[in-house]
């Protein structure tokens, strides 16, 4: 299946949950947050969130701002 992470396509062999996917992508710690197909996913819901073919994931972290 193919999913989009921060706009870039990634291929995975089988469907998985968000927690596992983030781990595979190398995200760790607590200074990031996630939206799936444009909707916020709370950290507590990562395990229960199924990732399907074609899903678009946004992973964001703090930056400077005005």
């Amino acid at each position: 299946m193919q999913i989009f992470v921060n706009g870039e396509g990634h291929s995975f062999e089988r469907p998985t949950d968000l927690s596992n996917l983030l781990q595979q992508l190398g995200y760790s710690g607590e200074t990031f947050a996630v939206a799936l197909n444009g909707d916020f996913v709370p950290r507590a819901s990562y395990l229960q969130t199924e990732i399907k073919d074609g899903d678009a994931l946004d992973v964001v972290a703090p930056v400077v701002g005005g």
Partner: protein
Amino acid sequence: MTEQLNLYGSAFDSRLLVGTALYPSPAIMRESVEASGSEIITLSLRRQNPEQQQGKMLWDYIRDSGCQLLPNTAGCKTPREAIALAEMSREIFQTDWLKLEVIGDDYNLQPDPYGLIEAARELVRRGFKVLPYCTDDLVVCRKLLDVGCEVLMPWGAPIGTGQGLLNRYNLQTLRERLPKVPLIIDAGIGAPSQAAEAMEMGFDAVLLNTAIAKAQNPVLMARAFRLAVEAGRSAYSAGLMLKRQTASPSTPTLDMPFWQQADTAFQD
């Protein structure tokens, strides 16, 4: 000593809010924020790859600064985008304060009033303390208050332009018609004199970024803005004199030397 700034139940000594972007280096940003005396700083969220660590480094500093964090939704063009980014901000920054931006025009970064009100209504419902970046339109501001915003942040001029207070009439109207609402001039301030002007008009605070970050000496400019905001606020509290059309001597005219009664005989 002037009274404190009260926003959403929190009191602040400083009436200058500053952004953290566009500085020549993180070290100069930190030094500038400290020199500004600001107790509220803005920041944001952007996509990040796992190998990047800038987010954590910034977060470590911000967390230690002791400042109230004011995450923004810069770049969002729809309520849906702004609401998602707001939720992500609340999770990461552990604050329900939010500088809400819903942009309606790329060219001058003008807020979209319809999207802004819709997003504000939903975010207030979700428990956010919304500080909307808005235009100086009285009706839009009233609608934002109606949906639950307790603080408004009308623009002085478009973001990053340094044009100052472009529409004094509208801004003065806001101040007069919404006397009890904390009003923060956000964006467009380019010089300390403009910040002082806003404070003299009775605005509760100013928020700026570019004018400090893009100065040749940001740390010194941060200090200049701190002094200007303090001066402007003190002037407002003291009460400005009324303007007059004609001159009025400040030095006593009574007992002026060289005056002879006879002089008047030659006049007229």
